[in-house]
C-alpha cells in the first residue's frame, strides 16, 4: 500500500534519518522499533506531511507522491495518532471530534461519536472539555476522529505509553479489527511485548538507520541486539525499607478535578515506602499526586504535610510541557532548583550542572536549551534537579516514553537515593512496573482507593481485578 524508498532527513547538520526503506501492506501491522532518538518520530512526521523529507521517494500504490502538507497525507488516507495528542484542549470532546471533518452538524456527529465509542467500548462524554481528559482518553478521541475521516493507513506513535492496561486492551482490539478491515497500520513503539502481540513484521531503527527487519514470529534476542549496542540490564528488584514515620496524611480528601476526581480518599504515606498508584488512567492518581504536592487544592478534607514544601518534588508525565521550561538551559534549571544569592554570573551553578550532566549521563552541555533533549535525557535532567534534601518524590508515569535502558536506569537511581527518611509515590499504568518497583500499592478506581496493600501480599491477578473494578467491594 505504501512504500518508503531510501528516505533521508536532515535538521541543519543533524541527520535524523539516513536512507530508510520499508513497505506496509494492507491488512497488516508493521512495527517500527528503536530506542529514544532513533528517528522513529521523524519518520512518522514525514509520512504525515508535517515535515518534508530531505531525500528519497514515497510510493502510494506504486505511485511516486510528494507529501508537502498534512492535507496531502490526509487525502491519501494517512492518519496518525501522536504520542502527545494534537487536539484543542479548551474545546469539548464533540467539538474536537468535529474539527477537521467536513460535516459540522452536531447532531450527526454526536451519533457517529456515540456509535464509535460503542464499537470500541470507549467511555467519553461529548460535553467534557478535552483538557480534563487523560492522555489515554484523548488518544481514543483522536483514533475515532481518524476512523471517521476514513483513514486507511494508520500510524501510531507509542500508543500505549501513558495509558492503562484496560485502555491498551481496548486499543489493541480496535487495531486488530481495523486490520481485518484492510487497514495498513504502522506501529511505532519501544515495547517488545507490544510488537510481538500485534505486528506481522518489524523494522528496527537505530541512529536514524535501519538496523534490522523481521517477520512474525520474531526473535526477541535479535531484535534487542539490533536496537541496542549492548543488551539492556534487567530491572532491579524493589528494595524493602521498613515503613517509618508518617510523611503525608490524606484525610477524607475530595476533589472534582480530572475525570473522576477524588472521593473521600484517606491514607497515610510513611517514610521508607515506595508507593505505586495503580488504576485505569484518570481514576484519581494524578489528582492525588498534584494535591499531595500542593498544585491542587482539594474541595473538602484535609492534607497534613509533615514535611516542608521545599522537601517535596513533583515530576509530571508530560515532562516538557509541565515539568521543565523550554527556552532555558540545563544550567538555568539547576540555578532555579537550588537556593542561591540574587546575582547570577557565568559561573553560577556551573560546577554543579557539569557534575549532574556527568552523573546522570545527560547528553548536552550546561548551555544546552532543554527543548533539544530527547525523552530519556529530559527525565534524567528532572531527576538531577531533585536536590538531596528532598524527602518526598511524587511522580506521574516515571518511565513514560523511555526505552528499556533509560527506564531501568531511572528506577535504579530512584531506589538508590531512597533513604529510610524518604518516600516515593508514583503513578503508572503499567502493572508490571508497579509490582516490580513499589513496596506498597494503592489501586484507584473512579476516584477512590479500592485496594491498599503491601506488594508482597498481592499478586498480578488480584491487582488487575481491582484495577478494572471487579474487586471494588473488597478493601
Amino acid at each position, binding site marked *: 500500500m505504501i512504500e518508503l524508498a531510501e528516505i533521508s532527513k536532515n535538521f541543519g547538520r543533524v541527520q535524523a534519518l539516513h536512507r530508510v526503506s520499508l513497505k506496509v501492506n494492507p491488512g497488516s501491522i508493521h512495527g517500527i522499533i528503536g530506542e529514544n532518538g532513533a528517528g522513529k518520530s521523524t519518520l512518522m512526521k514525514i509520512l504525515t506531511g508535517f515535515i518534508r523529507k530531505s531525500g528519497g521517494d514515497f510510493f502510494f500504490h506504486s505511485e511516486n507522491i510528494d507529501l508537502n502538507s498534512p492535507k496531502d497525507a490526509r487525502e491519501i488516507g494517512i492518519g496518525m495518532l501522536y504520542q502527545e495528542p494534537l487536539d484543542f484542549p479548551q474545546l469539548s470532546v464533540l467539538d474536537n471530534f468535529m474539527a477537521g471533518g467536513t460535516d459540522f452538524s452536531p447532531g450527526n456527529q454526536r451519533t457517529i461519536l456515540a456509535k464509535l465509542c460503542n464499537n470500541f467500548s470507549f467511555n467519553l462524554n461529548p460535553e467534557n472539555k478535552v483538557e480534563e481528559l487523560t492522555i489515554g482518553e484523548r488518544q481514543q478521541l483522536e483514533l475515532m476522529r481518524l476512523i471517521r475521516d476514513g483513514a486507511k493507513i494508520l500510524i501510531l506513535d507509542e500508543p500505549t505509553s501513558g495509558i492503562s492496561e484496560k485502555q491498551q486492551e481496548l486499543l489493541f482490539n480496535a487495531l486488530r479489527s481495523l486490520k481485518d478491515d484492510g487497514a495498513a497500520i504502522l506501529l511505532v513503539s519501544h515495547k517488545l511485548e507490544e510488537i510481538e502481540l500485534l505486528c506481522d513484521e518489524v523494522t528496527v531503527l537505530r541512529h536514524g538507520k535501519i538496523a534490522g527487519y523481521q517477520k512474525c514470529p520474531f526473535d526477541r534476542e535479535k531484535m534487542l541486539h539490533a536496537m541496542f549496542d549492548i543488551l539492556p540490564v534487567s530491572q532491579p528488584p524493589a528494595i524493602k525499607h521498613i515503613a517509618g514515620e508518617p510523611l503525608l496524611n490524606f484525610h477524607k480528601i475530595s476533589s472534582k478535578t480530572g475525570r473522576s476526581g477524588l472521593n473521600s480518599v484517606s491514607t497515610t504515606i510513611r517514610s521508607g515506602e515506595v508507593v505505586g498508584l495503580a488504576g485505569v488512567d484518570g481514576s484519581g492518581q494524578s489528582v492525588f499526586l498534584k494535591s499531595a504536592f500542593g*498544585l491542587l487544592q482539594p474541595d473538602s478534607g484535609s492534607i497534613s504535610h509533615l514535611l516542608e514544601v521545599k522537601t517535596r518534588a513533583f515530576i509530571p508525565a508530560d515532562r516538557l*510541557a*509541565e515539568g521543565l*521550561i*523550554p527556552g*532555558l538551559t540545563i544550567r*538555568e*534549571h539547576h*540555578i532555579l532548583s537550588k537556593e542561591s544569592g*540574587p546575582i547570577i554570573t557565568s559561573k553560577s551553578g556551573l560546577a554543579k550542572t557539569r557534575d549532574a550532566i556527568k552523573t546522570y549521563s545527560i547528553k548536552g552541555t550546561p548551555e544546552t536549551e532543554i527543548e533539544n533533549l530527547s525523552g530519556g535525557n529530559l527525565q534524567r535532567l528532572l531527576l538531577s534537579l531533585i536536590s538531596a534534601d528532598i524527602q518526598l518524590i511524587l511522580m506521574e508515569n516515571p518511565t513514560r516514553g523511555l526505552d528499556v535502558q533509560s527506564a531501568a536506569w531511572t528506577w535504579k537511581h530512584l531506589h538508590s537515593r531512597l533513604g529510610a527518611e524518604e518516600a516515593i509515590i508514583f503513578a503508572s499504568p503499567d502493572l508490571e512496573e508497579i509490582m516490580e518497583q513499589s513496596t506498597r500499592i494503592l489501586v484507584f478506581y473512579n476516584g477512590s482507593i479500592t485496594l491498599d496493600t503491601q506488594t508482597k501480599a498481592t499478586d498480578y491477578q488480584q491487582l488487575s481485578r481491582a484495577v478494572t473494578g471487579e474487586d471494588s467491594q473488597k478493601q
Partner: protein
Amino acid sequence: MSIILQLRRIVMITVLALGAVSLLLILLGISPLTIGITLTKGSIFSWLKFNHVLTIWIPLLLCSCGLLFTFRAGLWNIGVEGQVICGAIGATLVLRLDNTGLPPAALLSFALFTSFLAGGLWGALAGLLKTRGGVNEIFGGLGLNFVAQGVVLWLILGPWKRAGMASMSGTDLFPRELWMWIPPGWRVAPAAIVLVVIVFLLTGMILNATRFGLKIKAAGFNPQAARLFGIRPDLVGFTAMSIGGGLAGLAGGVQVSCVYHRLIPSISSSYGYLALLVVMLAGYKVTPVPIICLLFACLAAGSIQLPITLQIDSSLSGVIQGALVLSGLLVYGLQQRKSRGH
C-alpha cells in the same frame, strides 16, 4: 547564536525593509536616495538636530526597558502609553506643589521618583486586573490607556488649567528653577541621559544576571512548570508589570521635567507604541534595544524635515519603522521555520 548568524539576520532585515520602502517610494515617483539624505541630514548632521534625536531616544529607551521586563514575563503590556501619562501626571503633581521649602534639585528628583511610582501603579493595576480579575493584560492595558488620556485632559482643562483660560496647549509652565538644567547650546538635559543609561544597564543586569531575571524568564516561558520550581507566576507577572509601568512612568516624568516643563495632552507622544516595535525588532533581547531606539529616534527626528524640504508627509518615518519591524518578524519567523525543518 553565532555572531555570523546574527549579522546575517541584521543584514537580511535591513535589506528587506529598505528594499520594500524604496520600492514604494519609486512607485510614488520619489527618489529613495533623496529621502535618505534628508533623513540623515535632519537627524545627525548637526549638533542641535542630534539633540532632538536624543530627546526622543531617552523616553523611547525608558519605555523599551520597561517592555523588556513584561515581554520576558510573557505579557503583552499594551498600556505603556497610559503609564507614561500617569508618570507625567505624577511628576506634574510634585512640581506644582507650593511652598515645599525643598531645594529645586530635591524637588525634581522627588518628581521623577513620583513619576516612577505613578506609572508603576498604573502598570500594577493592569497586572492586578490580570492576576485577580482574569482580564487579559492587552485589554486591561488598552482600557487603562483611554482612562489615563481622559484624566490628563480633565486635569489640563479643569483643576490644572492655565491662569485665566483653559487651553489644549497644556498647563502653565513650571517656574524656571524647576526646569531640569540644560547647558547652553544643548536641548537635552545631561541628567536625563545619565538616568536612562543607568536604567538601561540595570535592566540588562537584572534580566540577564540575577535570579529574579531568571524567574521572570521561567514564568514567561512555562508558568505551569515554573510553579514546580517554587516560582509564583502571577506574582512574577505582577512585579514585571509594575516595573514596566514604573519605567514608562519615568519616561513621562522626563518629558514633563526636562522637555516640556508643563503637562500637555499629548505628553506620551506615542512612545509607548513605538517602544513595542523597538522591542519586537530587538527580538526581545536587551543589547540591541538602545541601538534600535537611536535608529527610530533618528527616523522620527529626520522626518520632520520631509514636509519642509520635499513636501512629503513626516509619517514616512512611521512607514519605515513599520517596514523594519515587519521585516524583522518575517526574518525571525523564516529562520525559526528553517531550524524546525519545514
